[in-house]
């Protein structure tokens, strides 16, 4: 092989390092005007009146009455309007759109909205409206709990988390011959198409979405860009001019989606020596005011809630609840970081209660090939819980440090975790993703809707095609995602871009190779002209899943990880200084080791922020600290030394053995950190574990 497994040169070129790469805000179109969103300033109520308190000359003004077809963002449900009509369900809900060519004038325009306020609901536990309920049953938990020697209970909480991609959201809608083009910072161009078709209906059939260079996503640009694109398109259609909407940081933080806050309750039965016999788990997610992706976030959260452990009797109930807060949505990990935080802290509490070492309790219960998960999935040979656990323990000298640091302010903690790759259950089968390879005069071009958002999509896909086709890496091009020109390869989410889309591309390359019949692409092209190969994803045929009972093969494969956090607590200020984090992760096989390492390092940093720093302060249903000054993510000086260990256990269904990777590293840091704090005698069951929380945390 010439490319796979090597850290080859990135397909991005040098543009990102020269400033030449074009992000949404860098683009200018002739006659372009600027758009602005007027949002609700109350969490719940009815709109009584809207007054335009400015000279409207030169302005384009849009409200819900300008919607050509249906005023609903078409995602899992069609409950969220592009523009509120009569009722407001959360703070910062879009109501009116303005556009003007001069930004100062646009900024100065004052829109006065009068409301009839209603009592808002902020507590998901008091909510009576559930977006989704899940009940997973394995064995008989009730009787197993009755016969258990020991029962350990606990409630664990996680807060909102903001994505903080450094490029805020932004799109430009450009009217063009017979339709409209959207250029934007988006993760899922075809989601935007789906939403726009619903918004515009048959009157405007020709819409296309072109992904511009995207300054980070992490899930935050999965569904919300559909909303912004809809707004820009409405303004563009009305003004007949290109309209640019770029959010500033505060608008981006206050108005767009976040990671769902969670409350997870565990009731666990064990034998005297620490073998799990029953796990009863309840997962409550705060969904916010609209459905968005909450049902699938809950689904992934619930499926991962029992952790990477073998237990014959498991009952997992989950609820995604309505509240009058801005809708929560996709964020790297997608429900699993919440529930794996809970189970991993719970495991350390179990170990404490039984007087067992935290490594030993995991060793005793971790999943092995042949074991069945909570959904009844029988695990295959690519199951690596024990492998990553043993490697992490050995590499960090865990037992020695744990013992030696007792009684000091230094501590060490561990977490064991797993992450299902690709869409859940029948998701990939229903999605019918496609990929296409086009022959060019010099090689081939990859034409997929998968987006490069920093993770290395272009490069990794090109590596797979290079080796599957047996041509030089340099002769593989990657098309910029333009929905009118590339195949719909499904959304760039769920750690599926390598494992799933990469697999289709591998198959496309094999078919292309057959077609070339031994000729080089250039020779074939010269002789026969252009050809294309398009294929659809076929998940492994053994995958069985029942969406009603939540039983079956939830994922084709899982990535496995074990994180060890070493840290020091300042006894005066309760500040935690992470010293080192060792991330041992198995994700099949790295296509590009340096990019893979970057995913683990970056995901680990986000996990550390989630654990210690990142607190969304909600006041009256809105983020009160929507500035980078007050919502703090790790800086260079907050980050410990990171040691990444990549282990291999190939997944036969992935390209060159690769599994999904992007989300796995997000799951482990928070519980490892909190378990280290636990070893210092602090009973912490909540993140972020801020100094304020630690100052008043009960002692164990």
């Amino acid at each position, binding site marked *: 092989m010439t490319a796979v497994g090597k850290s080859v040169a990135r397909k991005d070129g*040098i*543009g*990102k*390092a*020269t*400033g030449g790469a074009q992000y949404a805000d860098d683009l200018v179109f002739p006659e372009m005007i600027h758009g602005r969103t007027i949002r609700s300033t109350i969490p719940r109520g009815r709109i009584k009146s809207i007054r335009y308190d400015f000279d409207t000359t030169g302005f384009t003004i849009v409200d819900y009455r300008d919607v050509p077809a249906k005023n609903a963002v078409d995602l899992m449900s069609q409950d969220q309007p592009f523009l509120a009509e009569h009722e407001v369900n959360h703070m910062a809900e879009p109501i009116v759109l303005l556009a003007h060519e001069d930004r100062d004038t646009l900024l100065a325009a004052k829109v006065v909205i009068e409301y009839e306020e209603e009592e808002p609901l902020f507590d998901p536990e008091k909510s009576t409206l559930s977006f989704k309920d899940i009940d997973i049953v394995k064995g008989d938990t009730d009787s197993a709990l009755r016969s258990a020697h020991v029962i350990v209970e606990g409630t664990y909480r996680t807060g909102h988390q903001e994505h903080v991609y*450094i490029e805020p959201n932004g799109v430009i809608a450009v009217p063009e011959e017979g339709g409209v083009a959207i250029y934007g910072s988006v993760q899922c161009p075809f989601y935007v198409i789906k939403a726009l078709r619903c918004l515009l209906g048959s009157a405007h059939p020709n819409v296309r979405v072109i992904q511009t260079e995207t300054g980070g996503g992490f899930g935050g640009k999965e569904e919300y860009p559909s909303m912004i694109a809809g707004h820009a398109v409405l303004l563009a259609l009305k003004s007949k001019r290109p309209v640019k909407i770029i959010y500033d940081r505060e608008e981006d933080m206050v108005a767009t989606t976040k990671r769902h806050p969670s409350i997870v309750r565990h009731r666990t039965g064990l034998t005297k020596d620490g073998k799990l016999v029953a796990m009863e788990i309840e997962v409550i997610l705060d969904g916010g005011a609209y459905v968005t992706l909450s049902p699938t976030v809950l689904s992934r959260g619930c499926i991962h809630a029992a952790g990477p452990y073998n237990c014959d009797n498991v009952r997992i109930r989950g609820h995604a609840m309505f509240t009058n807060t801005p809708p929560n949505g996709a964020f790297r990990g997608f429900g699993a970081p919440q529930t794996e935080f809970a189970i991993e802290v719970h495991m350390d509490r179990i170990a404490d209660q039984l007087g067992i070492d935290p490594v030993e309790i995991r060793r005793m219960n971790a999943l092995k090939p042949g074991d069945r998960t909570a959904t009844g999935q029988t695990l295959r040979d690519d199951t690596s819980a024990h492998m990553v656990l043993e490697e992490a323990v050995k590499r960090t000298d865990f037992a020695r440090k744990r013992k030696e640091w007792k009684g000091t302010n230094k501590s060490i903690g561990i977490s064991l975790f797993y992450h299902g790759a690709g869409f859940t259950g029948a998701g990939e089968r229903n999605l019918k993703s496609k990929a296409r390879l086009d022959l060019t005069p010099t090689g081939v071009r990859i034409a997929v809707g998968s987006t490069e958002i920093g993770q290395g999509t272009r490069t990794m896909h090109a590596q797979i095609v290079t080796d599957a086709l047996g041509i030089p890496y340099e002769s593989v091009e990657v098309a910029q995602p333009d929905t009118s020109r590339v195949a719909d390869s499904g959304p760039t989410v769920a750690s599926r871009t390598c494992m799933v889309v990469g697999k289709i591309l591998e198959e496309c390359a094999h078919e292309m190779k057959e077609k070339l019949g031994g000729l080089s692409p250039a020779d074939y092209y010269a002789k026969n002209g252009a050809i294309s190969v398009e294929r659809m994803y076929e998940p492994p045929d053994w995958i069985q899943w029942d969406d009603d009972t939540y039983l079956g093969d939830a994922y084709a494969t899982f990535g496995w990880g074990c994180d060890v956090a070493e840290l020091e607590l300042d006894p005066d200020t309760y500040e935690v200084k992470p010293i080192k984090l060792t991330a041992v992760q198995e994700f099949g096989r790295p296509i590009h080791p340096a990019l893979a*390492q970057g995913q683990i390092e970056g995901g680990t940093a986000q996990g550390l922020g989630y654990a210690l720093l990142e607190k969304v302060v909600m006041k009256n249903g809105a983020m009160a600290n929507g500035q*980078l000054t007050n919502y703090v993510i790790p800086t260079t000086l907050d980050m410990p030394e990171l040691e990444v260990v990549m282990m291999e256990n190939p997944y036969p269904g992935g390209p060159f053995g690769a599994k999904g990777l992007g989300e796995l590293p997000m799951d482990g840091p928070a519980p490892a950190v909190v378990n280290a704090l636990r070893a210092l005698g602090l009973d912490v069951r909540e993140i972020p574990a801020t100094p304020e929380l630690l100052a008043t945390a009960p002692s164990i």
Partner: protein
Amino acid sequence: MQFRLNGADVEVGAHPMSRLLDVLREECNLTGTKEGCGEGECGACTVLIDGEPVCSCLVPVSQVEGAEVLSIEGLGGNHPLQKLFMNEVGAQCGICTPGMIMAALTLPDDPTLDDVKTALAGNLCRCTGYSAIYRAVLKWKTNEIQRADATQEIQR
């Protein structure tokens, strides 16, 4: 209003309280300098004024009258640090990269890892966890030949 930008004299007609960031992006059409927060927190808009890194979102253009401004475009495209950021995967999404490179430029020779961390503490990256950025910067700073190249590059 006149100043030196990337080695050439420029004259701009912007409002004196325009942010240097906006003047660079909109009047000089140099969009390599990015806006991430507008509050001096993220460092994506870092440029050098008279050799010192500053956040161009917090600088009124009146204050660069007669000064020497260096933006990412001033490095050309062959600066070794630019190449190393790509090769070492110090750039993922790339939005923080120009600012990160500008902040790293002023590091002294043979910096320690702590020096690098301190110099880049005003630049947020959400993708990399910073490790790959350290690898890129340290590799540049510990290679004499590349350093000589870099000096030439900036002078040009």
